[in-house]
């Protein structure tokens, strides 16, 4: 029942900070890895024994190093999926992971469907039949999350653009299709020159979309980190130190930051978006109240919360309130101003793991590295949802668009070579089904429907 073609996905393991694992499964996974990876000891992956691990480098087509990696091979049937499985452990952050997956796709693998590794493991008899229910749940859950993310990732604009491209393709196909199936009718159809123009405009739109997706991917993939804390704890100071810019105004006056200040930082290839917020307290100042409201929203939207407490002040109700709001969220608790005399008795607070509170001084730049390390750990290591799914879903869209672009370009070639309509349609239909897949649609009867709504058929 297994397809046995080669699939690839990002499978970052929990708690394994700063390492991303790219997993391949299928009959070509070893062959593909050999094309992109050179081990330090010059040994081919195909020559390795199963369960061996080698160190080496991943190269792109121009023979430039993308990343260092450790590769492990598990030959079928003694692997998770019972197929040949290769795992590429790379360090270079999400940007280089993206590149590596792109190259693997070029070499003939395809992106795994949600839950497909588990599905293969099951279908190949690796997972016990009694676990069928669990497997179904995994696929179902992954399918639902990835659909959700797909929907979120498609911004209003690109969704509209994709819909528009689909309509345009369906329209051209119907124009060409009537010339075949309804040749006997007396129909006025689009001249071929206009059709070429239309196809070229589609080409342009797809290229634009791919570029946009490429650009926005980085922004969208960024991890949103909200820095919160009562006024004057040093939120803006921390932001400035981490980004190396004086973006946020720092004063000794509590309530300085009134609106959300945003700054992006590249943490080992992972874009991180810091949001410095207004300190939360009950205030009569309207502007400050608005700022506080926004801060609360930022807390809701953030992927990670950095909550700062002030070492030089007593723990206040505001601190307790913030701890309560952010409870259960991914958070990092900092105790700032440790250069000053300790007045905060954090031991009395109800925090599950006091040891994880990081003690820093924004002023003296103490403990900042620890903060960065902790961010990476949470972002890269433990959060499967953020990385595996988001990156792959976006990549899936882009891969589909890129493949559709190839079809569109072929269609233009086909016309230029003077091939007749059915050949042009073959290319266009192929593009259409790929673009439909982005939004999860089936192509079905839409072309005939278009023909009947548009042309006066029936002699």
């Amino acid at each position, binding site marked *: *029942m297994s397809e046995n073609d080669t699939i690839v996905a990002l499978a970052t393991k929990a708690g394994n900070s700063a390492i991303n694992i790219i997993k391949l499964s299928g009959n070509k996974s070893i062959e593909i890895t050999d094309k992109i990876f050179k081990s330090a000891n010059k040994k081919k992956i195909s020559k390795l024994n199963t369960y061996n691990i080698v160190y080496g480098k991943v190269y792109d087509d121009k023979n430039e190093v993308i990343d260092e990696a450790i590769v492990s091979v598990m030959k079928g049937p003694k692997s998770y999926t019972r197929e040949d499985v290769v795992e590429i452990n790379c360090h270079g952050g999400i940007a280089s992971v993206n590149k590596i997956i792109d190259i693997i796709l070029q070499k003939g693998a395809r992106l795994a469907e949600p839950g497909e590794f588990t599905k293969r493991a*099951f279908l190949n008899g690796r997972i016990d039949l009694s676990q069928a229910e669990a497997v179904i749940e995994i696929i*179902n859950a992954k*399918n639902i999350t990835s659909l959700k993310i797909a929907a979120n990732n498609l911004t209003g604009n690109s969704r509209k653009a994709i819909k528009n491209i689909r309509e345009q393709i369906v329209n051209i196909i119907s124009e060409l299709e009537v010339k075949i*199936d309804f*040749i*006997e*009718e007396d129909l006025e159809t689009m001249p071929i020159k206009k059709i070429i123009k239309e196809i070229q405009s589609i080409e342009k739109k797809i290229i634009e979309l791919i570029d946009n997706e490429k650009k926005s991917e980085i922004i969208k993939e960024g991890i949103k980190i909200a820095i919160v804390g009562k006024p004057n704890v040093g939120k803006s100071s921390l932001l400035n130190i981490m980004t190396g810019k004086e973006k946020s105004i720092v004063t000794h006056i509590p309530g300085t930051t009134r609106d959300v200040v945003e700054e992006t930082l590249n943490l080992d290839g992972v874009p991180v978006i810091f949001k410095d917020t207004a300190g939360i307290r009950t205030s009569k100042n309207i502007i400050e109240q608005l700022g506080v409201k926004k801060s609360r929203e930022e807390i809701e939207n953030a992927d990670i919360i950095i909550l700062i407490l002030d070492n030089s002040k007593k723990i206040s109700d505001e601190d307790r309130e913030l701890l309560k709001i952010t409870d259960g969220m991914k958070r990092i608790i900092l105790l700032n101003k440790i250069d000053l005399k300790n007045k905060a008795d954090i031991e009395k607070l109800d925090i599950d793991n006091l040891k994880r509170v990081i003690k820093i001084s924004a002023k003296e730049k103490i403990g900042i590295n620890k903060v960065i390390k902790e961010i990476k750990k949470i972002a890269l290591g433990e959060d499967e949802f953020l990385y595996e799914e988001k990156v792959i879903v976006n990549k899936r869209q882009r891969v589909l668009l890129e493949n559709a672009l190839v079809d569109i370009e072929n269609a233009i070639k086909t016309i230029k070579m003077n091939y007749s309509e*059915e050949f042009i349609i073959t290319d266009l239909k192929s593009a259409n089904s790929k673009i439909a897949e982005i939004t999860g649609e089936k192509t079905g009867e839409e072309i005939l429907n278009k023909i009947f709504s548009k042309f006066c058929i029936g002699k």
Partner: protein
Amino acid sequence: MKKFDLIVVGAGHAGCEAALSAARLGLKTLLLTINLEKIALMPCNPSIGGVGKSQLIAELDALGGEMSKIADETFIQMKTLNMSKGPAVQSKRAQIDKKEYEILMKKIITYTKNLILRQGTVKKVLINDSKVSGIETEEGSSFLCQSLVITTGTFLRGRIIIGDKEYAAGRMGEYPSARLTASLNEIGIKTDRYQTATPPRVDKRTIDFSKMKEQPGENDIYFSFWKKSKNKSNISSFLTYTNKKTHEVIASNISKSPIKSGIINTHGPRHCPSIDRKVINFPEKVRHPVFVEPEGRNTNEAYLQGLTTSMPIEFQKMIVNSVAGLENARIIRPGYAVEYDYIYPNQLNLTLESKNIENLYFAGQINGTSGYEEAAVQGFVAGVNAALKLLKKPPFMLKREESYIGVLIDDLLTKELVEPYRMYTSRAEQRLLLRADNADIRLAKYGHSIGLLSHREYKKVLNKIKSIENITNLLKSKFVKPGEEAGKIFNYLGSSDIEAPVKLYDLLKRPEIKIIDIMQYFLLNENKIDSEVLKQAEINIKYEGYILKQLEENKKYSTIEGISLPSEIDYHNVSGLTFSAQEKLNYFKPETLGQASRIAGVSPADISILMINLKSRKI
């Protein structure tokens, strides 16, 4: 009581193919029909073939069906459509001598061993333990049978509508089948109503052809791969157009049109709208074409393709007479609409057997299709499968990626149909592979293994395949070397010269170079090779890139296509499926995972979930 292996109800295009194939496979077969004078009648346009349909006929012919051969003997005109396009969409279309077709089909049926033709109207299907056991007729006879194929066309509770007149009839001038629907409903077959219509016919002697454009046919083209007919007829059709006056007549009397008055509210085929509907829906069009087509050699009746209407007769006359060349035309048969019962085809298996009642088959228009060709291929599939089952042989099911017949049946079983189904080439994803010209190569093997294609005919195909291979290999092995002589030839052929030796195979990929050129200039010493062989080799080489692409896509099908789904599942109990998938799967009850994947509303994740349930034997 008389006992048969198989009874076929209705001797239209589906019924005739069903009865012939079953009888030829050795089944004692009874073909029952309401009127013995109307065998294989063409109640609408007496034309066979056309785009998409000629592909169906070629396939039927390759399998051992009858339609292609009778059409070859009885056409009065034949032509190729889409001549300027690639081979996949080139299509033959024949104008048929309606009466001669009926006579020849009746003759073949009458002289077929094991086959008995009788007049009779079936009123009841007899069932024993969810299995067919026989039928009862209105006339009072009963027959026992093991299998039953129902091919009643438009006859079930047929109702004819002309203007505000309506009456029960199967077709104009024929009795309907009034009670069979109720009997089918009783045994759980669900039905609904469709409608179709036909234009008025006029007396040829009252037409002024000088105001029309002549549409001649071509010579020496035929449908069948096997028997070359000697028929050389080439009687022209004529083209004229409706005009402002026609449209005014219609527009100002539109309230009289049954589609407006509400007498007709069932779905008709979108590909064959009445002139009334065309004028309403496309008011900006100033004219619509009207093809005047002869109905046969021995009649003056002419068919007015494009003027379908069921307006009251006086308006039909006004409409007809408004058209150039038809000013004085006399209507001798009015246009009319007919409404009839069809069964939801998703109640059938790929063999066209009912999912619930064993040995009960349906084929043709009763399955919600339109067209003689669509009917004929279904009749063939149903008849063959009824026979194979009784002979305890494996069923005959064609896949969508290997044939138009497969596309047709798969569509019937997995699509939500809103109108009578007609074949188009655009329905076949693998259009470039499923060509009429290679139907024998694709399908003769099945015709032969079923037993409807003789060994001699099959051998012809095997030889053809071998010869294609040989010439292809030859083209791959021979080179043209650059030089003065070659340069001249390329110049003559309007092609660019070569600098290094080039394979003949690669030369043939140049659009301007034909295989006959290559044979003539570079393969002089070859013995004369059959033109059909050359044509196939040429197509394969010239369009190789596209063909390979489609073959690659084919692979996608094969994995899940062969995985069957049990029929007894309530998908609402299958965990993990989306609700929409559960609903759709329960409605269509697909036989294979492949079919399930084509149903709108069933996602790839749903298919994964079905696979896992299958593997764990939860369903």
